[in-house]
């Protein structure tokens, strides 16, 4: 083997003979190289896996959730999570079951006390037809198929809140709300960021100076208090959908600065690349240079930035709704769910109200892992 140009650690299929391996590497398309590199990053793959599960929940929330988001179960109020089990002293069962359980209010302490009836088993049934619903918050296809349910009575794997609503179901609906809000917010931020950053980076000069100062100005205003101020200014009598829209807009409009900066920086460095100068010397038009030469080098970076930006949106929404300035009931989002668990009394009385936070943490972790993995893979020629 003479001078090999494949940098160390970039060989993909070690089983191939060296020449074929080289050939495969040199003829691979950019996205293939990105994928080969990303595939080796286990955390990145884990993040992608987590997010796929979330997208699945987002799309099929109605089907996966055993109950509606506002269905009340007056028999089981503020009840702890029920455990699905396969065996007990009465023997083993291939079909998982939960015990029959109800809650009663203690007349002295007013706490809800669950009574578990060990003798009554409720078997889990899969693909049950129970309550009718319509996909996407009652806007699309009607169905009554649920992923699971019990043969009689109710099942609350994550427990219930103070009104007897199933936390598992609510968490799934909240996943939809919070993630779609994140997507729309990030898109708004991205479009503004692309236009402003693109103008600053490509036009340069006065425009660049002005946009740079504007970004610095916006960044010097503390974000969460400003979100709060703006969110507080929303009229209290607005319908929840309108509030949802406005919160998304606020988060999006104030969040573009980071993206704009990154896009500008990348454009500036790209403009000095040899191949761009070569294209200019060869007489390529501006449009052609941007579209054919700069954009491909650039897309992967933008994708990384967008992915990395998601957690910020999610955490901002959660914090806003948590303190009561963001989304409000009856909209169900992660922050709204956690409102019920604002103080120490709630934790001591009903720790399961915090289960939704695990979903927030995993969503943020998923985006972070995926973003880190993509960042490493984004520039396969490096």
């Amino acid at each position: 083997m003479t001078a090999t140009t494949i940098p160390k650690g970039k060989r993909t299929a070690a089983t191939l003979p060296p020449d074929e391996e080289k050939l495969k590497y040199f003829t691979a398309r950019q996205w293939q190289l990105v994928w080969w590199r990303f595939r080796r990053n286990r955390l990145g793959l884990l993040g992608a896996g987590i997010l796929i599960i979330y997208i699945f929940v987002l799309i099929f929330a109605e089907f996966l959730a055993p109950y509606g988001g506002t269905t009340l179960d007056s028999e089981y109020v503020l009840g702890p999570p029920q455990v699905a089990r396969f065996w007990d002293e009465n023997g083993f069962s291939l079909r998982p079951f939960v015990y029959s359980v109800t809650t009663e209010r203690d007349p002295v302490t007013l706490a809800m006390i669950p009574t578990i009836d060990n003798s009554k088993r409720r078997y889990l049934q899969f693909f049950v037809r129970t309550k009718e619903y319509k996909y996407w918050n009652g806007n699309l296809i009607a169905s009554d198929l649920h992923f699971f349910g019990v043969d009689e009575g109710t099942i609350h794997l994550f427990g219930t809140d103070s009104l007897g609503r199933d936390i598992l179901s609510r968490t799934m609906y909240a996943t939809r709300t919070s993630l779609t809000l994140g997507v729309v917010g990030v898109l708004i931020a991205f479009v503004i960021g692309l236009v402003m950053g693109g103008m600053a980076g490509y036009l340069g000069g006065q425009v660049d100076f002005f946009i740079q100062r504007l970004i610095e100005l916006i960044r010097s205003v503390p974000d969460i208090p400003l979100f709060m101020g703006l969110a507080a200014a929303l009229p209290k009598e607005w319908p929840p959908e309108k509030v949802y829209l406005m919160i998304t807009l606020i988060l999006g409009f104030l969040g573009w600065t980071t993206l704009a900066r990154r896009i500008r920086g990348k454009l500036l460095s790209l403009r000095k690349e040899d191949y761009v100068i070569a294209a200019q010397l060869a007489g390529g038009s501006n449009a052609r240079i941007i579209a054919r030469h700069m954009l491909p080098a650039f897309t992967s970076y933008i994708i990384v930035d967008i992915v990395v930006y998601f957690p910020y949106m999610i955490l901002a929404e959660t914090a806003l709704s948590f303190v009561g300035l963001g989304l409000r009931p009856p909209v169900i989002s992660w922050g709204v769910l956690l409102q019920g668990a604002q103080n120490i009394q709630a934790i001591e009385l009903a720790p399961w109200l915090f289960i939704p936070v695990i979903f927030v943490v995993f969503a943020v972790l998923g985006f972070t892992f995926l973003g880190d993995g993509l960042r490493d893979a984004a520039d396969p020629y490096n």
Partner: protein
Amino acid sequence: MLRYFAQRFIFMIITLLFVSVVIFIVIELPPGDYAERYAYRKLASAGQDVTEQDMINVRHEFGLDKPAPVRYFNWITDIILHGDFGESFLFNVPVRNMIGDRIWLTMALASTAILLTYALAIPIGIFSALYRHSFGDYLATFIGYIGLSLPNFMLALVLLYFSVTVLGSSAGGLFSEEFAEAAWSWPRVVDLLEHLWVPAVVLGTANTAFHLQTMRATMLDELNQLYVDAARARGIPEWKVIFKYPVRIALNPIVSYLGFDLGKLVAGAPVVALVLSLPDAGQLLLQALLQQDMFLGGAILLMISTMIVIGVFISDLMLAALDPRIRLGET
């Protein structure tokens, strides 16, 4: 240096103006104006009907019938010249009296959190980079990821739960009962410091995680540079090689972030204050905003923002002192 100083100073003034305009807009945003709420509160609660004429009188009294730029001008000159932030709608007292100590508590909280961040992030970041792929490095990376993804109010609740169930004490608040309303004295300061660490840890965690990652990444880049090898080749002791060269450069991004750090910490404060029931400005801000008491909310926003802008200015100067390339205007 002087030119750089003047440049940053002018920019700071412009920023402050911009911030005040934004906050003024926020104050004016809610539907209905101050006069309406004032009139309904004052007159309607006294059992009188509110007439159009009353509204006009009230508007005139507060200068609300003038165009927005004039109102802004009046608002800002009152603040700058007389320290008059208007009257709290919620409590019926001048906003100035409401804020008092609270803003300093918030600042004390933020500064403690920043000190904590640096004290943890810098040494651990250096360690992580020097002993890459060691158990300690993986542990630090793992904690870093968790720290970044856990909403800070959640961390507050977890710590609160821990301190109530395991330590048997409440971690909420900033003072013990006997000091809550007391005048400032030495024991009260000690008491404050004893309570300050929980909110400081809560606020500082995400930032610590962030700086830890930055520190580690820059250190790793710098450790591979030729000048490090050159320093070693000259026989300089290893600790000196590390601390005199790569560490010094790796500190740059952290210092340049000081202002934004301050902003992030103060911004996160209201949510944490709610959970930990801290008597600081964040909690008051939240209360004001929830009740749409915009004068009070606006005043706190303005104060917090001003402190952050000054913080950014100071960090710019520090960065210039640390890095000659910046003060000579090369970057």
